[in-house]
């Protein structure tokens, strides 16, 4: 797919200067001894592409790159090609910016570190290379995989411990290195459907959060509703019916009131009204006496429960004393002779006196500490249940008392009404009756208001429940989609792993004589000879061949890997020259580098680039034609101006 190539790099500061030769397709070698600037070369490329190089930071206290740190007004100019389009990247030191100049001369500035900026440099270059930006979640943080993360499998940096394979994470990276991130890097570079999978994974996480939030909202809504009107759960249908009833009642009362106002009063009518009130009074009185009876019952029950609790607490204290006594004075045991009080070797199912007994019955008086503790625990547990029962009972008692008070006040009110009505008898208009009706109308209106409010709360709650249901459904759909994609991706990665392992094993067998089998495991890490220990010197070819296989796959298959490899001094302590050169010489076996002439853009076989730095004489002799730069003590990389 996408292809990245570096054509030239220019370093320019007030004090130092460097311009590289043109970098071709195929293999480019920079030769130099230690300290002449080999790693500086590759680090500058990494820096130009937005990476963080610690030694270039003059504010550090240790390990500073002397020349670069003492230089001022320094910048790096990188001439690159992405998919045959040329760009110039300009990066000033100590600025959080890269300027991209396109072929047509237009330029745009991109920030390097993502804070709230919309499109940063990494977004731009990944977009050019056709790699979708994938967002990972780790715990509470989301992290967008950026270009320098992917570069960990493109830049084979100089490392004392090559067994980690990947280049180390930049030190200013705020996420910690994790297996998940490394696997994602591999999958994005070599997989095809992975970006889709990670996208769905992220959507799933987001939807889960939404779902939980909605659940919480619903829960607190229910709690608030409970405190406002602590009546039981009444559903919408019932509420609407009650509302209707009350409104009908209200209408009736209003009509009756009108009638009262317009018609004349007669004593007979008033007496009839008084009789009505009296009947109501009797009815309520009956109810009140029932309530009082219930009150007495509940009170008795409450007293019994409290007594029971007291007894249980007493028993618990006594069992604790028993345990104490048992521990301090361990007197009774089935294995002690009651006469001489010596320990006895008692046969099973036989008493100390020798006669037959049933062992289980014998156990009756011989509880161990553990037995006592179990008994204590069960008593304590039942104490908890008793507490619940007492609380329930007390609640009921308070409730009944409240109802009794309410009923009593209603009775008082009716009594008052009757007295008032009796003064109406001689009046022309039944004033008091009208007033009483007005009172009733007021109460009814208030009740109707309350019901309306409850109805609106109920409706809101219904709505929330529906929304939660929708979210649940969406979540399930995403979950299934994730599962499908997961299987698809796993199949694909298995396929990739197989192809990778085939190439990798071929190369490893050639390069490492003790190697018989080589593959990558499901963490994409290399496994040689099924994990049997290999010598330290083998680490160099293991890592080098790994990167070469990555490049090979990018050339042969249609993957995201940008057909570019940056290798800095693959030699470490432990490998001897012969094996090092053998490993490096594998390059022309894998790739057809000898047939890539300079500036050859037509031949597809050369559609890749390797930049390799190594020490003098530490490369195959026949690779001499690929050496583009020779650094020595007198000809270091950075030249004084």
């Amino acid at each position, binding site marked *: 797919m996408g292809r990245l190539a570096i054509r030239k790099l220019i370093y320019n500061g007030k004090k130092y200067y460097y311009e590289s030769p043109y970098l071709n397709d195929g293999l480019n070698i920079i030769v130099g001894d230690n300290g002449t600037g080999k790693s500086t070369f590759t680090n500058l490329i990494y820096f130009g592409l937005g990476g963080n190089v610690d030694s270039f930071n003059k504010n550090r206290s240790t390990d500073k790159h002397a020349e670069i740190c003492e230089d001022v007004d320094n910048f790096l100019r990188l001439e690159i090609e992405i998919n045959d389009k040329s760009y110039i990247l300009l990066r000033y030191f100590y600025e959080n910016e890269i300027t991209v100049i396109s072929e047509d001369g237009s330029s745009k500035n991109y920030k390097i570190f993502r804070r709230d900026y919309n499109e940063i440099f990494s977004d731009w270059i990944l977009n050019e290379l056709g790699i979708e930006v994938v967002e990972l979640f780790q715990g509470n943080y989301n992290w967008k995989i950026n270009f320098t993360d992917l570069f960990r499998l493109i830049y084979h940096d100089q490392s004392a411990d090559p067994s980690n394979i990947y280049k180390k994470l930049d030190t200013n990276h705020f996420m910690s290195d994790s297996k998940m991130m490394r696997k994602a890097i591999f999958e994005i570079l070599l997989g095809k459907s992975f970006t889709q999978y990670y996208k769905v994974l992220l959507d799933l996480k987001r939807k889960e959060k939404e779902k939980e939030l909605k659940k919480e909202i619903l829960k607190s809504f229910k709690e608030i509703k409970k405190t406002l009107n602590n009546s039981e759960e009444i559903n919408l249908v019932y509420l609407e019916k009650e509302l209707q009833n009350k409104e009908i009642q209200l209408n009736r009362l209003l009509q009756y009131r009108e009638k009262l106002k317009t018609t004349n009063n007669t004593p007979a009518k008033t007496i009839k009204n008084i009789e009505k009130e009296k009947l109501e009074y009797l009815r309520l009185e009956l109810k009140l006496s029932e309530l009082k009876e219930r009150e007495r019952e509940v009170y008795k029950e409450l007293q019994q429960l409290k007594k029971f609790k007291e007894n249980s607490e*007493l*028993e618990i*204290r*006594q*069992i*604790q*004393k*028993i345990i*104490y*006594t*048992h521990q*301090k*004075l361990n*007197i*009774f045991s089935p294995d002690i002779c*009651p*006469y*001489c*009080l010596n320990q006895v070797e008692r046969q099973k199912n036989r008493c100390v006196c020798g006669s037959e007994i049933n062992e*289980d019955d014998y*156990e*009756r*008086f011989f*509880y161990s500490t553990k*037995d006592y503790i*179990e*008994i204590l625990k*069960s008593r304590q547990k039942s104490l908890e249940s008793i507490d619940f029962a007492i609380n329930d009972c007390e609640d009921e008692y308070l409730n009944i008392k409240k109802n009794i008070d309410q009923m009593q006040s209603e009775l008082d009110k009716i009594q008052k009404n009757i007295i008032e009505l009796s003064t109406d008898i001689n009046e022309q208009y039944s004033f008091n009756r009208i007033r009483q009706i007005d009172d009733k109308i007021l109460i009814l209106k208030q009740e109707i208001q309350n019901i309306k409010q409850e109805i609106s709360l109920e409706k809101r709650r219904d709505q929330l429940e529906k929304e939660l249901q929708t979210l649940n459904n969406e979540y399930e759909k995403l979950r299934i989609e994730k599962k499908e994609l997961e299987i698809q991706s796993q199949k694909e990665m298995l396929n990739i792993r197989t192809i990778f392992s085939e190439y990798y094993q071929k190369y490893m067998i050639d390069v490492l004589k003790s190697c018989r089998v080589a593959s990558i495991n499901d963490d994409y890490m290399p496994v040689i000879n099924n994990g049997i220990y290999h010598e330290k010197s083998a680490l160099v070819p293991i890592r080098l061949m790994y990167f070469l296989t990555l490049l090979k796959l990018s050339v042969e298959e249609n993957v995201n890997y940008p057909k570019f490899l940056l290798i800095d001094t693959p030699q470490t302590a432990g490998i001897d020259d012969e094996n090092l050169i053998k490993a490096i010489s594998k390059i022309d076996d894998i790739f057809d580098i000898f047939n890539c002439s300079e500036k050859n853009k037509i031949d597809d076989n050369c559609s890749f680039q390797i930049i390799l730095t190594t020490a003098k004489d530490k490369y195959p002799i026949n690779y001499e034609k690929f050496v583009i730069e020779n650094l020595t003590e007198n000809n270091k990389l950075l030249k004084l101006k």
Partner: protein
Amino acid sequence: MDTKKLEVKKRIMFIKNEDYYFLLYNILICLKFFQCFNEKKVFHDARKLSSIIYFMSSYEYTNIFCRSLKARKISNYEKSILTDVYSKSKIIINDVYKILFTLSKRNDLCLVKGKNNNLDIYIKENKILDDFFETSLFDEELSNLVLIKQSMNRFRTLKYETYIDKVFKSNGVGLWDV
């Protein structure tokens, strides 16, 4: 039998009022309270122990004990409690003897033959018992015993028959002898 079933069986079969250690600690606390440490201050007639155990282990029962000694009539409920205590004391009397016997074999306690072939007892002070008494766990029982002593001054020396008379018979509790 399954160990699990055995454990459950033991748990269900546990009767606190007849547990040996329950009886044991109450006996020891009672003897300590009345300072029965030597021959001169024996606890007369160990049979009294079998009922005093129940009176001293519950504050409610202690109150009933004290009220039973007053001249006034007791309620039906209190009378039923007294009957209950009397029956329980008859059930456990053999266990009390076993405990006293074991203790005397261990040299924690001394049995003395008293008048009319009754058993008088006193405890020997030794390290193990001292260690046992060194706790505030039994403060409840001790305060109950204070009330008991206030109501019945000569409890330690009282004859068994007199004791039964005063507490149970005079309140109408039916008695029986094994």
